[in-house]
């Protein structure tokens, strides 16, 4: 649906001739970000958090949805859910009856007091049980004052307007607003859910991929489906084949296999082996912070006993703090390796 919209707009701008428009159309579609191209349009396509999504689907059918806050980490489908709800509820009136404001819009106290109120007072003809929807994306970045001003507005216009808020952190939304909304908490997507979606997209795009390649995409995403699709698209555009090497090259992350061998060398107290890897990574030009966060992610899944893992993670954390202080030299990484090889908490085996 959105593809068509975009194409039409592009065609109008670029060239009105029909002969050329065909060419433009294919070009535009292929260059549309996959996160938009594959953004779910119906509730059935939304991955994860089935219990709340299915309930919202019922509201979309019957109308009369309450005000909602969806809270959860990035890339789990908060905005997508709200857009789906609005699309199903409002149908063709979507354009007139939805006011979408995100963190990039001005959302100070004036906007809430005036713009949102004006929208709430506008008359839009809708079937019974349907309401205008104000979507406030990234609502946790709204100031307290603006949220306070929203409080009463929410109730005064509750017969004509519904509010849908998305936020990363529900703590940052003031209590009166939480009380007026149904708070829905989304959890991080599991690796399996992301894997399924990534493979689905690969097949739709006719991509050649290896199993390790898609697993690498999932590893880089860390529970964020949007990041997964972005990384997949970058890999596809750059190499047209999804293999682990390509993925890590495109995402510009140290290869986790290298990091893994390094950490394993550390647990064997083999500092020479470990240092070879770190020297190579530094030669390749990776930033110290990136190497460290990659080490953290790898060590979370490393097959060692829990106390060894704790020792490793503690040392990585301390080094990351030093890096935040500005000490990003290779020396710090070498010191980290030394501590990990001989440090307390590392296995005596």
């Amino acid at each position: 649906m959105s593809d068509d919209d975009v194409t039409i707009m592009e065609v109008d701008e670029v060239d009105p001739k029909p002969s050329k428009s065909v060419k433009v159309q294919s070009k535009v579609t292929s260059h549309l970000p996959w996160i938009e191209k594959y953004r779910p349009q119906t509730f059935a396509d939304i991955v994860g958090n089935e219990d709340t999504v299915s309930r919202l689907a019922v509201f979309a059918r019957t109308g009369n949805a309450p005000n909602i806050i969806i809270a959860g980490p990035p890339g789990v489908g908060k905005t997508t859910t709200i857009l789906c709800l609005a699309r199903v509820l409002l149908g063709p009136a979507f354009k007139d009856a939805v006011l979408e404001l995100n963190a990039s819009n001005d959302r100070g106290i004036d906007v809430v007091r005036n713009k949102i109120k004006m929208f709430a007072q506008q008359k839009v003809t809708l079937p019974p049980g349907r309401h205008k929807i104000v979507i406030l994306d990234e609502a946790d970045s709204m100031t307290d004052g603006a949220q306070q001003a929203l409080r009463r507005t929410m109730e005064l216009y509750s017969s004509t307007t519904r509010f849908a808020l998305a936020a990363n952190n529900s703590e940052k939304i003031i209590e009166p607003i939480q009380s007026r909304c149904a708070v829905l908490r989304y959890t991080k997507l599991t690796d399996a859910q992301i894997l399924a979606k990534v493979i689905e997209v690969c097949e739709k795009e006719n991509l050649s991929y290896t199993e390790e390649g898609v697993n690498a995409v999932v590893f880089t995403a860390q529970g964020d489906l949007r990041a997964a699709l972005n990384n997949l698209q970058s890999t596809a555009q750059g190499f047209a084949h999804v293999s682990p090497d390509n993925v890590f090259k495109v995402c510009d992350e140290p290869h986790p296999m290298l990091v893994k061998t390094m950490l394993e060398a550390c647990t064997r107290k083999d500092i020479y082996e470990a240092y070879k890897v770190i020297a190579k990574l530094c030669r390749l030009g990776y930033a110290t912070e990136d190497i460290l966060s990659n080490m953290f992610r790898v060590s979370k899944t490393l097959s060692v006993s829990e106390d060894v893992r704790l020792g490793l993670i503690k040392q990585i954390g301390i080094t990351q703090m030093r890096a935040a202080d500005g000490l990003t030299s290779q020396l710090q990484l070498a010191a980290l390796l030394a501590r990990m090889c001989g440090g307390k908490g590392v296995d005596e085996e």
Partner: protein
Amino acid sequence: MLRPSKGKKWFKPVFDLDDNLPAKKIALDSPKVKSQDDEKNLQFASNTNILNNVRDSNWMKNFDPVNVEDLAVNNKKVLELEEWMKNSCLKLTNDILLLSGPVGCGKTATIQTLASKYNIKVTEWITPLDIEYPSEYGDYEFKEPQTKKFLEFIINSANFTSLLDNNSCKLVLVEDFPNIFLRTPAEFTEVLTFNAVTLTGLKGALKRASTIMNNKFSSTYNNPTTEIIDSVVNSSGGDVRSAILNLHFACLKGSTCNLETSIIKEKESKSKTSTRRKKNVSNKFMTLGKDQTVSILHGVGRVLNPKETVTEHGHKTLTHNPKDIIEQFLSHPSSFINFLHENYLPHYSCAYDVDEAATALSDADCMLAEWREQICQEYGLYTAVSGLMLANKSPVPAWNPVRGPKTMKVIYP
């Protein structure tokens, strides 16, 4: 709908529950004026029409209390407010009352219900738009300042009476008190503080709501079971409005999945709410409701009483992986660690273990204080959780109640 006597007023009646602590509400008894703004007049009239046409356009309105008995508020508070209303409104002595209390404890609802009982007209101050509609170029002019309008409103509503209604008692309700007039709340002559609604009150309100749901909406909603009502009551934290909203959500027909609930021991929640309960087990919604303490208590229990399982190779592993625990708390690591810090000591039996645990906590604290790198939060959380779990080599088997951290006020996330 519920109160046809109010249907023709120019303002949109608001029978809803209300407001957070700093919310100020003055009610002054005075004759009421019809309107101060023609344009607004029209808009509200149209709003009311819509309200009447579409019966269920505002679901929450169906559950507004009709009689004083329906209120979930403590009887004594209601009596106090009633007394005040009788004194000041019916005897026509001008008076101002400030009502304060936590979110959703029924402040507005009590006023509206009592006012309708004594046939007092309620006029509400609604913060007006302070700009004109923008021109086609998007620029707009500011109207006259709010302070002026507010004063006008108060004077008008105090001095003039409407031609249309014939009762003499008026009440002016101000919910959005303009900040500019609010220097010291102590200026208010009388202050009445409401407490959060008790569990029994909440249960009563929800029972009433469920009968209404049965009568009116049996096609869309399942009849809520007592189990669902209990879960809703427990996860709402004394907030009637959010409890009803959650009930709405929980009873919806046509959804295939059940909401995930978690069962916690009664004693744990008792230490939080310090109320007595007869039942031994209560459950809360994991994905719904504003009270997240349940998941925190869960996590604290898992961290402080680590259980080990032995794999077939003879290796001991922790039943609950620290990685899974930290993923639940990534959005508010410090509050979780505060809980751990408050509670870890009674669970340890050996001083060496305590040493190790305290080291882990202090390391974690150090990492959490690093604000320049977001990922340091994760390191800190991991160090604390995993460190506490591993340090506890012989957990005290006795049961310890979970205490809330003293150093911080628990904010329900």
